[in-house]
Protein backbone atom coordinates (compact mmCIF):
# COMPACT_ATOMS: atom_id res chain seq x y z
CA UNK A 1 0.00 0.00 0.00
CA UNK A 2 1.35 3.38 -0.95
CA UNK A 3 2.04 5.46 2.12
CA UNK A 4 1.26 8.71 0.33
CA UNK A 5 -2.25 7.53 -0.42
CA UNK A 6 -4.75 9.63 1.50
CA UNK A 7 -7.34 7.76 3.53
CA UNK A 8 -10.34 9.95 2.82
CA UNK A 9 -10.10 13.07 0.79
CA UNK A 10 -12.79 15.49 -0.22
CA UNK A 11 -12.06 17.89 -3.05
CA UNK A 12 -13.83 21.19 -3.75
CA UNK A 13 -17.28 19.97 -2.77
CA UNK A 14 -20.04 22.42 -3.55
CA UNK A 15 -23.74 22.10 -3.05
CA UNK A 16 -26.47 24.69 -3.33
CA UNK A 17 -30.01 24.26 -2.00
CA UNK A 18 -32.05 26.97 -3.68
CA UNK A 19 -30.64 30.21 -2.30
CA UNK A 20 -28.41 28.53 0.25
CA UNK A 21 -24.84 27.60 -0.53
CA UNK A 22 -24.58 24.66 1.86
CA UNK A 23 -21.11 23.62 0.75
CA UNK A 24 -18.74 26.05 -0.82
CA UNK A 25 -15.57 24.64 -2.36
CA UNK A 26 -14.94 22.46 0.66
CA UNK A 27 -11.68 20.53 0.62
CA UNK A 28 -10.02 18.40 3.29
CA UNK A 29 -8.44 15.04 3.86
CA UNK A 30 -8.08 12.81 6.89
CA UNK A 31 -5.90 9.91 8.01
CA UNK A 32 -7.04 6.52 9.16
CA UNK A 33 -7.13 5.31 12.75
CA UNK A 34 -8.22 8.62 14.24
CA UNK A 35 -11.27 10.30 15.62
CA UNK A 36 -11.76 13.45 13.62
CA UNK A 37 -14.35 15.87 14.89
CA UNK A 38 -16.28 18.03 12.49
CA UNK A 39 -17.27 21.25 14.27
CA UNK A 40 -18.80 24.52 13.28
CA UNK A 41 -21.87 26.63 13.94
CA UNK A 42 -25.32 25.48 12.87
CA UNK A 43 -25.70 25.47 9.13
CA UNK A 44 -21.97 25.13 8.53
CA UNK A 45 -22.61 22.11 6.29
CA UNK A 46 -21.54 19.27 8.57
CA UNK A 47 -24.46 16.96 7.89
CA UNK A 48 -24.41 17.93 4.22
CA UNK A 49 -20.83 16.66 4.07
CA UNK A 50 -21.97 13.37 5.58
CA UNK A 51 -24.79 13.12 3.06
CA UNK A 52 -22.40 13.81 0.21
CA UNK A 53 -19.72 11.35 1.31
CA UNK A 54 -22.22 8.54 1.89
CA UNK A 55 -23.95 8.99 -1.44
CA UNK A 56 -27.26 10.33 -0.13
CA UNK A 57 -26.73 13.62 -1.86
CA UNK A 58 -25.62 14.50 -5.34
CA UNK A 59 -22.97 17.19 -5.34
CA UNK A 60 -23.08 20.13 -7.71
CA UNK A 61 -19.34 19.93 -7.92
CA UNK A 62 -16.44 18.18 -6.27
CA UNK A 63 -15.31 14.65 -5.56
CA UNK A 64 -14.70 12.18 -2.78
CA UNK A 65 -11.84 9.68 -2.67
CA UNK A 66 -11.53 6.80 -0.25
CA UNK A 67 -8.23 4.94 -0.25
CA UNK A 68 -7.58 6.44 -3.64
CA UNK A 69 -10.85 5.27 -5.17
CA UNK A 70 -13.38 7.79 -6.41
CA UNK A 71 -16.76 7.59 -4.69
CA UNK A 72 -18.46 10.38 -6.57
CA UNK A 73 -21.79 9.39 -8.09
CA UNK A 74 -21.95 6.03 -6.35
CA UNK A 75 -25.06 5.02 -4.42
CA UNK A 76 -25.21 4.58 -0.63
CA UNK A 77 -25.20 0.77 -0.81
CA UNK A 78 -21.92 0.61 -2.69
CA UNK A 79 -20.33 3.16 -0.40
CA UNK A 80 -21.20 1.03 2.62
CA UNK A 81 -19.60 -1.90 0.86
CA UNK A 82 -16.53 0.22 0.11
CA UNK A 83 -16.17 0.69 3.87
CA UNK A 84 -17.88 3.93 4.90
CA UNK A 85 -21.07 3.86 6.95
CA UNK A 86 -23.00 6.52 8.79
CA UNK A 87 -25.45 7.22 11.57
CA UNK A 88 -28.17 9.85 11.55
CA UNK A 89 -28.66 12.82 13.80
CA UNK A 90 -32.31 11.81 14.27
CA UNK A 91 -31.35 8.16 14.89
CA UNK A 92 -33.63 6.53 12.28
CA UNK A 93 -33.81 3.25 14.17
CA UNK A 94 -36.43 0.66 13.21
CA UNK A 95 -38.92 1.18 16.03
CA UNK A 96 -41.00 -1.96 15.42
CA UNK A 97 -37.94 -4.22 15.49
CA UNK A 98 -35.96 -5.36 18.49
CA UNK A 99 -32.51 -4.03 19.29
CA UNK A 100 -31.01 -7.25 18.00
CA UNK A 101 -32.97 -7.09 14.74
CA UNK A 102 -31.90 -3.49 14.25
CA UNK A 103 -28.28 -4.55 14.42
CA UNK A 104 -28.86 -7.70 12.37
CA UNK A 105 -30.44 -5.62 9.60
CA UNK A 106 -27.06 -4.05 8.93
CA UNK A 107 -24.91 -7.21 8.95
CA UNK A 108 -23.65 -7.75 5.39
CA UNK A 109 -23.82 -10.89 3.24
CA UNK A 110 -26.86 -12.63 4.66
CA UNK A 111 -28.33 -15.56 2.84
CA UNK A 112 -32.09 -15.34 2.31
CA UNK A 113 -32.31 -11.61 2.09
CA UNK A 114 -34.26 -12.07 -1.12
CA UNK A 115 -37.41 -14.15 -1.66
CA UNK A 116 -36.02 -17.03 -3.71
CA UNK A 117 -33.38 -17.96 -1.17
CA UNK A 118 -35.78 -17.45 1.73
CA UNK A 119 -38.45 -19.66 0.12
CA UNK A 120 -36.48 -22.40 -1.53
CA UNK A 121 -33.51 -22.81 0.78
CA UNK A 122 -35.13 -22.25 4.18
CA UNK A 123 -32.66 -24.38 6.11
CA UNK A 124 -29.68 -22.58 4.70
CA UNK A 125 -31.48 -19.29 5.39
CA UNK A 126 -32.15 -20.26 9.00
CA UNK A 127 -28.52 -21.20 9.47
CA UNK A 128 -27.33 -17.90 8.05
CA UNK A 129 -29.91 -16.15 10.24
CA UNK A 130 -28.48 -17.78 13.35
CA UNK A 131 -25.00 -16.69 12.41
CA UNK A 132 -26.19 -13.15 11.80
CA UNK A 133 -27.92 -13.04 15.18
CA UNK A 134 -24.75 -14.23 16.87
CA UNK A 135 -22.78 -11.50 15.15
CA UNK A 136 -25.40 -8.96 16.13
CA UNK A 137 -25.40 -10.17 19.74
CA UNK A 138 -21.63 -9.79 19.86
CA UNK A 139 -21.91 -6.21 18.64
CA UNK A 140 -24.60 -5.43 21.20
CA UNK A 141 -22.25 -6.77 23.86
CA UNK A 142 -19.49 -4.57 22.53
CA UNK A 143 -21.59 -1.44 23.00
CA UNK A 144 -23.02 -2.63 26.32
CA UNK A 145 -26.57 -3.40 25.22
CA UNK A 146 -26.49 -7.20 25.45
CA UNK A 147 -29.22 -7.29 28.10
CA UNK A 148 -31.55 -5.27 25.86
CA UNK A 149 -31.18 -7.51 22.80
CA UNK A 150 -34.84 -8.54 22.68
CA UNK A 151 -36.25 -5.15 23.70
CA UNK A 152 -38.15 -3.11 21.15
CA UNK A 153 -36.48 0.13 20.25
CA UNK A 154 -39.29 2.26 21.60
CA UNK A 155 -38.78 0.73 25.03
CA UNK A 156 -35.13 1.74 25.16
CA UNK A 157 -33.93 4.90 26.86
CA UNK A 158 -32.58 7.68 24.66
CA UNK A 159 -29.02 6.87 25.70
CA UNK A 160 -29.54 3.22 24.79
CA UNK A 161 -30.96 4.24 21.44
CA UNK A 162 -27.85 6.31 20.75
CA UNK A 163 -25.68 3.31 21.57
CA UNK A 164 -27.86 1.14 19.33
CA UNK A 165 -27.20 3.51 16.44
CA UNK A 166 -23.48 2.93 16.93
CA UNK A 167 -24.06 -0.81 17.17
CA UNK A 168 -25.97 -0.76 13.89
CA UNK A 169 -23.29 1.18 12.06
CA UNK A 170 -20.65 -1.19 13.47
CA UNK A 171 -22.61 -4.13 12.08
CA UNK A 172 -22.05 -2.93 8.53
CA UNK A 173 -18.41 -3.84 9.01
CA UNK A 174 -17.34 -0.46 7.65
CA UNK A 175 -13.88 0.72 8.64
CA UNK A 176 -14.71 4.43 8.55
CA UNK A 177 -17.67 5.50 10.63
CA UNK A 178 -19.44 8.80 10.07
CA UNK A 179 -21.23 9.58 13.32
CA UNK A 180 -23.70 12.44 13.29
CA UNK A 181 -23.88 13.88 16.82
CA UNK A 182 -23.52 10.60 18.71
CA UNK A 183 -23.55 12.36 22.09
CA UNK A 184 -26.22 15.02 21.56
CA UNK A 185 -28.90 14.94 24.23
CA UNK A 186 -26.78 12.81 26.52
CA UNK A 187 -25.30 13.68 29.87
CA UNK A 188 -23.63 12.04 32.83
CA UNK A 189 -23.11 8.30 32.58
CA UNK A 190 -24.68 7.94 29.15
CA UNK A 191 -22.36 10.57 27.69
CA UNK A 192 -19.34 9.03 29.38
CA UNK A 193 -20.29 5.62 27.99
CA UNK A 194 -20.41 6.85 24.41
CA UNK A 195 -17.08 8.65 24.71
CA UNK A 196 -15.40 5.58 26.16
CA UNK A 197 -16.90 3.45 23.40
CA UNK A 198 -15.74 5.75 20.61
CA UNK A 199 -12.18 5.84 21.96
CA UNK A 200 -12.14 2.09 22.31
CA UNK A 201 -13.42 1.62 18.76
CA UNK A 202 -10.67 3.91 17.52
CA UNK A 203 -8.08 1.86 19.38
CA UNK A 204 -9.52 -1.22 17.68
CA UNK A 205 -8.88 0.42 14.33
CA UNK A 206 -12.18 2.05 13.44
CA UNK A 207 -11.60 5.50 12.01
CA UNK A 208 -14.31 8.00 12.83
CA UNK A 209 -15.53 11.26 11.47
CA UNK A 210 -17.76 12.75 14.15
CA UNK A 211 -20.07 15.75 14.08
CA UNK A 212 -19.88 17.15 17.59
CA UNK A 213 -21.16 20.33 19.22
CA UNK A 214 -19.99 19.84 22.76
CA UNK A 215 -16.52 21.34 23.05
CA UNK A 216 -15.77 19.33 26.16
CA UNK A 217 -16.49 16.12 24.24
CA UNK A 218 -14.38 17.32 21.33
CA UNK A 219 -11.45 17.92 23.66
CA UNK A 220 -11.81 14.48 25.13
CA UNK A 221 -12.22 12.36 22.02
CA UNK A 222 -10.80 14.21 19.03
CA UNK A 223 -7.38 13.51 17.60
CA UNK A 224 -7.99 16.21 15.08
CA UNK A 225 -10.61 18.85 14.44
CA UNK A 226 -12.04 20.16 11.20
CA UNK A 227 -13.62 23.56 11.63
CA UNK A 228 -16.32 24.34 9.14
CA UNK A 229 -17.97 27.66 8.47
CA UNK A 230 -20.50 28.50 5.76
CA UNK A 231 -19.78 25.33 3.85
CA UNK A 232 -16.06 25.90 3.77
CA UNK A 233 -13.18 24.42 5.74
CA UNK A 234 -11.81 27.22 7.93
CA UNK A 235 -9.18 25.32 9.89
CA UNK A 236 -7.83 21.87 10.57
CA UNK A 237 -5.69 20.95 13.55
CA UNK A 238 -5.46 19.53 17.04
CA UNK A 239 -8.37 20.30 19.36
CA UNK A 240 -6.10 22.49 21.49
CA UNK A 241 -4.99 24.57 18.54
CA UNK A 242 -8.53 25.02 17.20
CA UNK A 243 -9.96 25.93 20.61
CA UNK A 244 -7.20 28.42 21.24
CA UNK A 245 -7.85 30.33 18.02
CA UNK A 246 -9.79 33.45 19.04
CA UNK A 247 -11.14 33.99 15.54
CA UNK A 248 -12.72 30.52 15.43
CA UNK A 249 -14.07 30.90 18.95
CA UNK A 250 -15.77 34.09 17.91
CA UNK A 251 -17.40 32.40 14.93
CA UNK A 252 -18.46 29.47 17.01
CA UNK A 253 -19.74 31.25 20.08
CA UNK A 254 -20.22 34.79 18.92
CA UNK A 255 -22.22 34.02 15.82
CA UNK A 256 -20.12 36.43 13.75
CA UNK A 257 -20.81 36.41 10.04
Amino acid sequence: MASDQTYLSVKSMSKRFGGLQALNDCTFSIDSGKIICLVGPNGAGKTTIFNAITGFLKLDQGSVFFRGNGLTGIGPQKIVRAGIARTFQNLRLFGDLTALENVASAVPNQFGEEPLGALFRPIHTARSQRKTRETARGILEEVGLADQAEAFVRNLSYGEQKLLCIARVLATGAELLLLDEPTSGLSGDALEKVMVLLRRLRDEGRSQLVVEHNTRVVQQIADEVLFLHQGHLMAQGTPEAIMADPKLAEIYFGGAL
Partner: protein
Amino acid sequence: MDYLFSYLILASIFVILGLSTNLLVGVVGIFSVSQAAIFGVGAYTVGYALSNDIMGFVPALALAAVVCLVLNVLITLPSLRVSGDYFVVTSFGIQLLATAAFTNWDAITGGASGMAGIPTADLFGLPIDTSLKTLILTACVACLACFAFRLVMRSPFGRLLMALREDELAVAAAGRQVLRAKVEAAALAGVFAGVAGGLYAVYLSFIDPSTFDLDASVLLLTMVVLGGARTLAGSIVGPFVVVALPQLLSLIDLPTAIAASARQGIYGVLLVAFMLFRPQGLMGRKI
Protein backbone atom coordinates in the same frame (compact mmCIF):
# COMPACT_ATOMS: atom_id res chain seq x y z
CA MET B 1 -73.15 -28.72 2.86
CA ASP B 2 -72.49 -27.05 -0.49
CA TYR B 3 -73.01 -23.81 1.27
CA LEU B 4 -70.27 -24.55 3.77
CA PHE B 5 -67.95 -25.71 0.98
CA SER B 6 -68.58 -22.53 -0.93
CA TYR B 7 -67.73 -20.48 2.14
CA LEU B 8 -64.53 -22.39 2.86
CA ILE B 9 -63.38 -22.29 -0.75
CA LEU B 10 -63.94 -18.55 -1.07
CA ALA B 11 -62.35 -17.90 2.29
CA SER B 12 -59.22 -19.86 1.39
CA ILE B 13 -58.93 -18.03 -1.92
CA PHE B 14 -59.17 -14.76 -0.04
CA VAL B 15 -56.55 -15.96 2.42
CA ILE B 16 -54.09 -16.19 -0.48
CA LEU B 17 -55.17 -12.76 -1.67
CA GLY B 18 -55.04 -11.40 1.87
CA LEU B 19 -51.45 -12.58 2.21
CA SER B 20 -50.59 -10.73 -0.97
CA THR B 21 -52.14 -7.51 0.29
CA ASN B 22 -50.69 -7.96 3.74
CA LEU B 23 -47.20 -8.35 2.33
CA LEU B 24 -47.42 -5.19 0.26
CA VAL B 25 -49.54 -2.94 2.46
CA GLY B 26 -48.97 -4.33 5.94
CA VAL B 27 -45.35 -5.38 5.86
CA VAL B 28 -43.67 -3.08 3.34
CA GLY B 29 -46.12 -0.21 3.75
CA ILE B 30 -46.76 0.29 0.04
CA PHE B 31 -50.36 1.40 0.39
CA SER B 32 -51.89 -0.10 -2.71
CA VAL B 33 -55.63 0.10 -3.36
CA SER B 34 -55.32 -1.78 -6.63
CA GLN B 35 -54.72 -5.34 -5.48
CA ALA B 36 -58.16 -6.41 -6.71
CA ALA B 37 -57.03 -5.40 -10.20
CA ILE B 38 -54.10 -7.83 -10.01
CA PHE B 39 -56.47 -10.48 -8.65
CA GLY B 40 -58.66 -9.80 -11.69
CA VAL B 41 -55.79 -10.11 -14.15
CA GLY B 42 -55.01 -13.52 -12.65
CA ALA B 43 -58.63 -14.58 -12.96
CA TYR B 44 -59.01 -13.36 -16.55
CA THR B 45 -55.70 -14.92 -17.60
CA VAL B 46 -56.74 -18.36 -16.38
CA GLY B 47 -60.30 -17.89 -17.59
CA TYR B 48 -59.16 -16.93 -21.08
CA ALA B 49 -56.55 -19.66 -21.34
CA LEU B 50 -58.99 -22.39 -20.27
CA SER B 51 -62.04 -21.11 -22.15
CA ASN B 52 -60.07 -21.00 -25.38
CA ASP B 53 -58.40 -24.29 -24.69
CA ILE B 54 -54.95 -22.74 -25.00
CA MET B 55 -53.39 -24.72 -22.16
CA GLY B 56 -54.18 -26.81 -19.12
CA PHE B 57 -55.04 -25.49 -15.69
CA VAL B 58 -51.59 -25.81 -14.11
CA PRO B 59 -49.71 -23.99 -16.86
CA ALA B 60 -52.49 -21.39 -16.99
CA LEU B 61 -52.12 -20.80 -13.25
CA ALA B 62 -48.35 -20.47 -13.69
CA LEU B 63 -48.91 -18.03 -16.53
CA ALA B 64 -51.30 -16.00 -14.36
CA ALA B 65 -48.66 -15.92 -11.62
CA VAL B 66 -46.00 -14.65 -14.01
CA VAL B 67 -48.26 -12.05 -15.62
CA CYS B 68 -49.34 -10.75 -12.21
CA LEU B 69 -45.76 -10.74 -10.97
CA VAL B 70 -44.67 -8.49 -13.82
CA LEU B 71 -47.76 -6.30 -13.61
CA ASN B 72 -47.55 -5.85 -9.87
CA VAL B 73 -43.91 -4.83 -10.11
CA LEU B 74 -44.81 -2.30 -12.81
CA ILE B 75 -47.68 -0.75 -10.88
CA THR B 76 -45.67 -0.68 -7.66
CA LEU B 77 -42.74 1.12 -9.26
CA PRO B 78 -44.33 4.57 -8.82
CA SER B 79 -44.10 3.97 -5.07
CA LEU B 80 -40.35 4.37 -5.42
CA ARG B 81 -40.79 7.93 -6.55
CA VAL B 82 -43.97 9.04 -4.88
CA SER B 83 -44.32 7.99 -1.30
CA GLY B 84 -47.11 7.36 1.16
CA ASP B 85 -50.27 9.30 0.56
CA TYR B 86 -49.41 10.17 -3.01
CA PHE B 87 -49.02 6.56 -3.99
CA VAL B 88 -52.60 5.87 -2.86
CA VAL B 89 -53.76 8.30 -5.54
CA THR B 90 -51.58 6.64 -8.19
CA SER B 91 -52.80 3.24 -7.14
CA PHE B 92 -56.40 4.45 -7.18
CA GLY B 93 -55.91 5.49 -10.80
CA ILE B 94 -54.45 2.12 -11.69
CA GLN B 95 -57.47 0.39 -10.16
CA LEU B 96 -59.88 2.53 -12.22
CA LEU B 97 -57.82 1.88 -15.33
CA ALA B 98 -57.96 -1.86 -14.73
CA THR B 99 -61.72 -1.82 -14.22
CA ALA B 100 -62.08 0.11 -17.46
CA ALA B 101 -59.95 -2.48 -19.25
CA PHE B 102 -61.92 -5.41 -17.81
CA THR B 103 -65.18 -3.73 -18.83
CA ASN B 104 -64.20 -2.65 -22.32
CA TRP B 105 -61.74 -5.16 -23.69
CA ASP B 106 -64.62 -7.33 -24.93
CA ALA B 107 -62.53 -9.65 -27.07
CA ILE B 108 -60.60 -10.94 -24.10
CA THR B 109 -62.69 -10.30 -21.00
CA GLY B 110 -66.20 -10.51 -22.36
CA GLY B 111 -66.77 -6.90 -21.33
CA ALA B 112 -69.33 -5.84 -18.76
CA SER B 113 -71.30 -9.05 -19.10
CA GLY B 114 -68.27 -10.99 -17.99
CA MET B 115 -66.72 -14.29 -18.93
CA ALA B 116 -68.98 -17.29 -18.45
CA GLY B 117 -68.49 -21.01 -18.74
CA ILE B 118 -64.88 -21.19 -17.63
CA PRO B 119 -64.01 -24.90 -17.54
CA THR B 120 -63.24 -26.53 -14.22
CA ALA B 121 -59.68 -27.09 -13.16
CA ASP B 122 -57.73 -30.26 -13.66
CA LEU B 123 -54.54 -31.40 -12.04
CA PHE B 124 -52.50 -33.29 -14.61
CA GLY B 125 -55.59 -35.05 -15.97
CA LEU B 126 -57.39 -35.35 -12.64
CA PRO B 127 -60.53 -33.21 -12.97
CA ILE B 128 -61.37 -30.96 -10.03
CA ASP B 129 -65.09 -31.16 -10.67
CA THR B 130 -66.71 -31.34 -7.24
CA SER B 131 -66.89 -28.84 -4.41
CA LEU B 132 -64.91 -31.13 -2.17
CA LYS B 133 -62.08 -31.48 -4.66
CA THR B 134 -62.06 -27.74 -5.23
CA LEU B 135 -61.93 -27.17 -1.50
CA ILE B 136 -59.00 -29.54 -1.14
CA LEU B 137 -57.19 -27.78 -3.97
CA THR B 138 -57.78 -24.25 -2.68
CA ALA B 139 -57.07 -25.21 0.91
CA CYS B 140 -53.77 -26.82 -0.12
CA VAL B 141 -52.73 -23.78 -2.11
CA ALA B 142 -53.75 -21.52 0.77
CA CYS B 143 -51.68 -23.60 3.19
CA LEU B 144 -48.74 -23.44 0.83
CA ALA B 145 -49.13 -19.67 0.61
CA CYS B 146 -49.28 -19.39 4.40
CA PHE B 147 -46.15 -21.49 4.69
CA ALA B 148 -44.37 -19.31 2.15
CA PHE B 149 -45.47 -16.16 3.98
CA ARG B 150 -44.16 -17.54 7.23
CA LEU B 151 -40.82 -18.48 5.68
CA VAL B 152 -40.48 -15.02 4.23
CA MET B 153 -41.40 -13.22 7.43
CA ARG B 154 -38.91 -15.22 9.44
CA SER B 155 -36.10 -14.74 6.96
CA PRO B 156 -33.70 -11.83 6.62
CA PHE B 157 -35.82 -10.80 3.64
CA GLY B 158 -38.83 -10.39 5.95
CA ARG B 159 -36.81 -8.31 8.37
CA LEU B 160 -35.58 -6.17 5.49
CA LEU B 161 -39.17 -5.55 4.38
CA MET B 162 -40.24 -4.58 7.91
CA ALA B 163 -37.28 -2.21 8.12
CA LEU B 164 -38.20 -0.76 4.75
CA ARG B 165 -41.64 0.23 6.01
CA GLU B 166 -40.11 2.11 8.90
CA ASP B 167 -37.23 3.93 7.33
CA GLU B 168 -36.00 3.65 3.76
CA LEU B 169 -33.04 5.94 4.32
CA ALA B 170 -31.81 3.85 7.22
CA VAL B 171 -32.18 0.73 5.08
CA ALA B 172 -30.01 2.33 2.41
CA ALA B 173 -27.50 3.41 5.06
CA ALA B 174 -27.31 -0.22 6.19
CA GLY B 175 -26.06 -1.07 2.72
CA ARG B 176 -29.30 -2.48 1.30
CA GLN B 177 -30.88 -1.78 -2.03
CA VAL B 178 -34.27 -0.27 -1.38
CA LEU B 179 -35.41 -0.53 -4.99
CA ARG B 180 -34.54 -4.19 -5.28
CA ALA B 181 -36.29 -5.15 -2.06
CA LYS B 182 -39.46 -3.33 -3.06
CA VAL B 183 -39.50 -4.96 -6.47
CA GLU B 184 -39.04 -8.40 -4.90
CA ALA B 185 -41.89 -7.81 -2.45
CA ALA B 186 -44.17 -6.62 -5.22
CA ALA B 187 -43.24 -9.64 -7.33
CA LEU B 188 -44.09 -12.04 -4.54
CA ALA B 189 -47.37 -10.27 -3.80
CA GLY B 190 -48.18 -10.42 -7.51
CA VAL B 191 -47.66 -14.18 -7.64
CA PHE B 192 -50.00 -14.70 -4.67
CA ALA B 193 -52.70 -12.48 -6.20
CA GLY B 194 -52.40 -14.14 -9.60
CA VAL B 195 -52.77 -17.63 -8.17
CA ALA B 196 -55.75 -16.52 -6.08
CA GLY B 197 -57.35 -15.04 -9.20
CA GLY B 198 -56.85 -18.24 -11.18
CA LEU B 199 -58.43 -20.37 -8.47
CA TYR B 200 -61.33 -17.95 -8.23
CA ALA B 201 -61.99 -18.16 -11.98
CA VAL B 202 -62.12 -21.95 -12.14
CA TYR B 203 -64.17 -22.23 -8.97
CA LEU B 204 -66.94 -19.80 -9.95
CA SER B 205 -66.62 -20.48 -13.70
CA PHE B 206 -67.99 -16.98 -14.16
CA ILE B 207 -66.13 -13.72 -13.63
CA ASP B 208 -67.09 -10.13 -14.34
CA PRO B 209 -65.49 -6.72 -13.74
CA SER B 210 -67.51 -5.99 -10.59
CA THR B 211 -65.56 -8.64 -8.66
CA PHE B 212 -62.28 -6.82 -9.28
CA ASP B 213 -63.25 -3.20 -8.78
CA LEU B 214 -62.31 -0.61 -6.19
CA ASP B 215 -64.88 -1.98 -3.72
CA ALA B 216 -63.07 -5.31 -3.89
CA SER B 217 -59.73 -3.64 -3.18
CA VAL B 218 -61.24 -1.91 -0.17
CA LEU B 219 -62.74 -5.22 0.94
CA LEU B 220 -59.25 -6.72 0.80
CA LEU B 221 -57.85 -3.93 2.92
CA THR B 222 -60.70 -4.49 5.37
CA MET B 223 -59.69 -8.14 5.65
CA VAL B 224 -56.07 -7.26 6.33
CA VAL B 225 -56.82 -4.51 8.84
CA LEU B 226 -59.46 -6.55 10.63
CA GLY B 227 -57.31 -9.65 10.80
CA GLY B 228 -54.15 -7.86 11.75
CA ALA B 229 -51.61 -6.37 9.39
CA ARG B 230 -48.16 -7.97 9.28
CA THR B 231 -49.30 -11.22 10.91
CA LEU B 232 -49.89 -14.60 9.34
CA ALA B 233 -52.80 -15.38 11.66
CA GLY B 234 -54.39 -12.08 10.73
CA SER B 235 -54.27 -12.89 7.03
CA ILE B 236 -56.16 -16.09 7.77
CA VAL B 237 -58.70 -14.81 10.28
CA GLY B 238 -59.47 -11.59 8.37
CA PRO B 239 -60.76 -13.27 5.19
CA PHE B 240 -62.67 -15.94 7.11
CA VAL B 241 -64.51 -13.28 9.10
CA VAL B 242 -65.13 -10.89 6.23
CA VAL B 243 -66.28 -13.59 3.79
CA ALA B 244 -68.74 -14.78 6.45
CA LEU B 245 -70.17 -11.29 6.98
CA PRO B 246 -72.66 -11.24 4.08
CA GLN B 247 -74.05 -14.58 5.23
CA LEU B 248 -74.31 -13.36 8.81
CA LEU B 249 -76.00 -10.20 7.60
CA SER B 250 -78.49 -12.23 5.61
CA LEU B 251 -79.68 -13.67 8.93
CA ILE B 252 -80.89 -10.20 9.79
CA ASP B 253 -83.99 -9.58 7.74
CA LEU B 254 -82.92 -6.60 5.66
CA PRO B 255 -84.94 -5.53 2.62
CA THR B 256 -83.02 -6.66 -0.47
CA ALA B 257 -83.01 -3.10 -1.78
CA ILE B 258 -80.69 -1.90 0.93
CA ALA B 259 -78.83 -5.13 1.72
CA ALA B 260 -75.92 -4.45 -0.64
CA SER B 261 -75.36 -0.89 0.44
CA ALA B 262 -75.77 -1.86 4.07
CA ARG B 263 -72.96 -4.36 3.60
CA GLN B 264 -70.66 -1.70 2.14
CA GLY B 265 -71.60 0.55 5.03
CA ILE B 266 -70.71 -2.11 7.53
CA TYR B 267 -67.29 -2.67 5.91
CA GLY B 268 -66.67 1.04 6.22
CA VAL B 269 -67.73 1.12 9.87
CA LEU B 270 -65.54 -1.90 10.60
CA LEU B 271 -62.50 -0.28 8.97
CA VAL B 272 -62.92 2.93 10.94
CA ALA B 273 -63.70 1.12 14.17
CA PHE B 274 -60.64 -1.10 13.91
CA MET B 275 -58.37 1.80 13.00
CA LEU B 276 -59.64 3.65 16.07
CA PHE B 277 -59.93 0.93 18.67
CA ARG B 278 -57.77 -1.93 17.57
CA PRO B 279 -55.29 -0.83 14.92
CA GLN B 280 -53.31 -4.04 15.28
CA GLY B 281 -56.36 -6.09 14.19
CA LEU B 282 -57.86 -9.17 15.74
CA MET B 283 -54.66 -11.19 15.71
CA GLY B 284 -52.00 -8.49 15.70
CA ARG B 285 -49.48 -8.20 18.45
CA LYS B 286 -49.99 -5.15 20.58
CA ILE B 287 -47.55 -2.47 19.51
